[in-house]
């Protein structure tokens, strides 16, 4: 799931110039720091956001930075919290481009929480917006990212046919983009297209795409962040190991898998790659009729999956709790707002009614006196 992080961190935005110089300075600084120091960028944006004098544009900018940096810092609950607020403002402002970017980040976050349906709702909205006249044809990078995320969504729903068509669309957009970061994204798109082809057992095409996804360390590795290169290589090797397993060559597949594990020995563990390695090892050993090793790797795989599922469940539970807290606070705010309006209107009408009753009673007294006088003279 963390494979998403690289692509979405590139979704940062373009905003108008802020009116208030101090706030504008903070936000500009935060925006510049997003990639190098997301934690500091988040802090700056939060400081700006807490300022009550922000205009709509500044509010949106600070929320966008907080959403994006929370995503980079892997804090899904904060992404959802700030992202949804940003989405509301972007919607009010009619800022379609920012809206698409936020929908992309939110979709990606829900995907990381395994909330596939919710992911699709956000990405579908983004896709609809892409075809709106407000979106220039030249926004290749943004379009590519949304298509890529949709492809991943279908890939995780085991719908590799549709996933492939979205990966192709994404690749097509990235190829036209002049943004240097598109080079990274296109590699990711080829990689996952390769995996989708493996899911369809189209091994020849899969290997072609894995080769396109792979990075030639001798020639162009310098263009890419080192962590990305290492991961990309590990994933392409994993893809090749999967293909070998499909071709009934479990020993060769295992060799590659052990090689990846060896290379990743000193790296921070990642569920998405290591879980797949242990799963494939257990399957390969089953093919090799080695029940003991199969059981061993399967138990590691199951333990790791249980742990990552439990982590994801924790986040979903927190998200449900947060939804509850947000709903309670929304209800409180409704009660507060309408309580005030109800009180105000009740007081307003009461005062007017009492005043009018008082005046009417007075008039009535005058009327009675005059009537008496008139009746005397009639």
């Amino acid at each position, binding site marked *: 799931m963390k494979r998403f992080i690289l692509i979405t961190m590139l979704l940062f935005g373009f905003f108008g110039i802020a009116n208030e110089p101090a706030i504008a300075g903070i936000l500009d600084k935060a925006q510049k720091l997003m990639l190098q120091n997301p934690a500091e960028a988040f802090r700056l944006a939060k400081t700006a956001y807490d300022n009550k004098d922000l205009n709509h544009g500044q509010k949106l900018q600070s929320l966008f930075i907080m959403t994006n940096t929370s995503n980079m810092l892997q804090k899904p609950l904060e992404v959802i919290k700030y992202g949804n607020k940003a989405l509301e403002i972007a919607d009010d402002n009619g800022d379609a481009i920012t809206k698409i970017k936020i929908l992309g980040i939110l979709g990606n976050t829900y995907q990381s929480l395994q909330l596939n349906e919710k992911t699709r709702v956000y990405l579908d909205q983004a896709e609809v917006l892409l075809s709106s006249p407000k979106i220039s044809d030249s926004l290749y990078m943004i379009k590519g990212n949304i298509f890529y995320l949709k492809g991943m969504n279908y890939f995780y729903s085991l719908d590799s046919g549709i996933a492939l068509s979205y990966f192709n669309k994404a690749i097509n957009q990235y190829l036209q983009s002049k943004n240097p970061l598109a080079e990274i994204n296109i590699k990711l798109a080829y990689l996952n297209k390769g995996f989708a082809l493996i899911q369809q057992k189209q091994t020849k095409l899969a290997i072609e795409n894995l080769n396109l996804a792979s990075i030639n360390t001798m020639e162009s590795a310098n263009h890419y962040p080192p962590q990305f290169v290492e991961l990309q290589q590990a994933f392409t090797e994993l893809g090749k190991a999967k293909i070998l397993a499909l071709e009934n060559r479990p020993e060769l597949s295992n060799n590659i898998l052990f090689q990846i594990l060896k290379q990743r020995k000193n790296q921070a563990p990642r569920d998405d790659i290591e879980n797949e390695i242990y799963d494939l090892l257990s399957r390969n050993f089953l093919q090799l009729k080695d029940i003991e090793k199969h059981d061993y790797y399967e138990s590691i795989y199951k333990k790791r999956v249980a742990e990552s599922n439990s982590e994801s469940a924790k986040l979903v539970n927190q998200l449900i709790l947060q939804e509850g807290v947000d709903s309670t606070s929304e209800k409180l705010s409704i009660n507060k707002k309408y309580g005030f309006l*109800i009180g105000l209107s009740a007081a307003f009408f009461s005062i007017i009614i009492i005043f009018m009753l008082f005046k009417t009673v007075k008039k009535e007294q005058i009327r009675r006196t005059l009537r008496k006088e*008139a009746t005397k003279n009639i």
Partner: protein
Amino acid sequence: MFFFLSIFGKSIDPEKKQLFQKAGYDLVLTPEKTLETLDYLEKNFVLDTDEKEKLDYLKIKSLFFQNNLNDALKKIANNDENISPNILILKRSILNYLSIKTPFAKKDETNNDIIFSEQIKDLTNKINQNKIKNISASLSDVLKKATTSNLILARENLLSLFKTVGSKDFQSSEYFLKEIQKLYNNDVEFQIFYAQFLIENNHLAEAKTLIDLLPKDSLEQTTNINLKYEYYDLLVLYYSKTGSYSDYKEYIDKNESILKQLDQAKFSAKNKWFNIIENNYKEEEKSLLENRKNILLYIIVVGSIIIILILIRFLQISTQIKEYRNFIRKINVLKERKTSQPQSIPEKTENLLLEKLQNFEKSEDCIDPNISLQNLAKKLETNTKYLSEAINTHKQKNFNAYINELRINYIINKLKEKPIYRSYKIKYLAEESGFSTHSAFAAVFKSVTGMSPASYIQLLKEKEE
């Protein structure tokens, strides 16, 4: 499932009882049959509240066993406050299966079944996290309570504890498992877990005997997907110990495809539940907002209506005040109109003319709609100049105003003398007094008396009352 009827202890119709018993009996191995029976019951019998609750409970459980989690979730989507304790326990078991935690509603803390189910769940979690100190005492306590509790309601939680205890190597495990198994002696799922426990503890022969006793065909065909998975898992474990590769591979493959189904259903159910929760919150917010808007609207509408009513009354009173004031002023003017005016007509002629005018005033000739200055002059045997001057000088008004006032006085006398006139329409009164239109009549009436004919009539009525 023989103990099924003990849940709801009440005496019921024997056929219904039999059908409920059948539904409960089929639940674990053939949950689809349970659903069929329940549908039949629902369509062909009148069910009371308890029976409906029982039916819902079994339906949800049946859907859950068939891995139809989305439909099961739809049925437990209501707020905890709106569902019965039995279904609440089941709801928590299903959510627990999906690793979703829900906070406890306060009212649940007093229900014994809920308290027991939470105790079992808590113990299971502690054992899983190795946080339990005196396992024997805790298991004994659960066992003691289980013998007197509602076993249907406690089943899912006890099964989960049974499985957890079976996977750990505790001295006290075996006794607990045997005793629980006795309580659920016909429940195949407990037998499967017990066989697993035996294999884990290398009692292969005993496990084999138990496996042979399991209803193999029913388990192969069951729509209870979890049960099937557990059965295959048991066989995988057994064959991994006995070293039979082909059997092992067969059940590993079978298990894998079932696991995919289970995972997909869980995945989709988690999404579903999140959507349900989100929608519930949105609905609550929407309904609160609508309620507050309605209150506000009610205050505005009622307040405005009251203001309008008071305003109407206020204007009515103001109009009447104005009319009374005009009337009083006119009366005063009439009283003051007694002063004599300088003469320009010979005195004798004038006196004669005034005498004739007095006679004219006493007659009802003024109501003749064709009356004019010329007609009247001719009638009074004078010229129009003298007549006009006499009226202007002695009546302080022109001929038309003079005639109109006479007509109004005529109708006022009628109104005073003949109460029936007070009920006539204004149009009739206008015609009666010689006016061609009722609007002209009303205008002249108001200019003469200071108030409208209707107000005048009202005043007359009030005076007489």
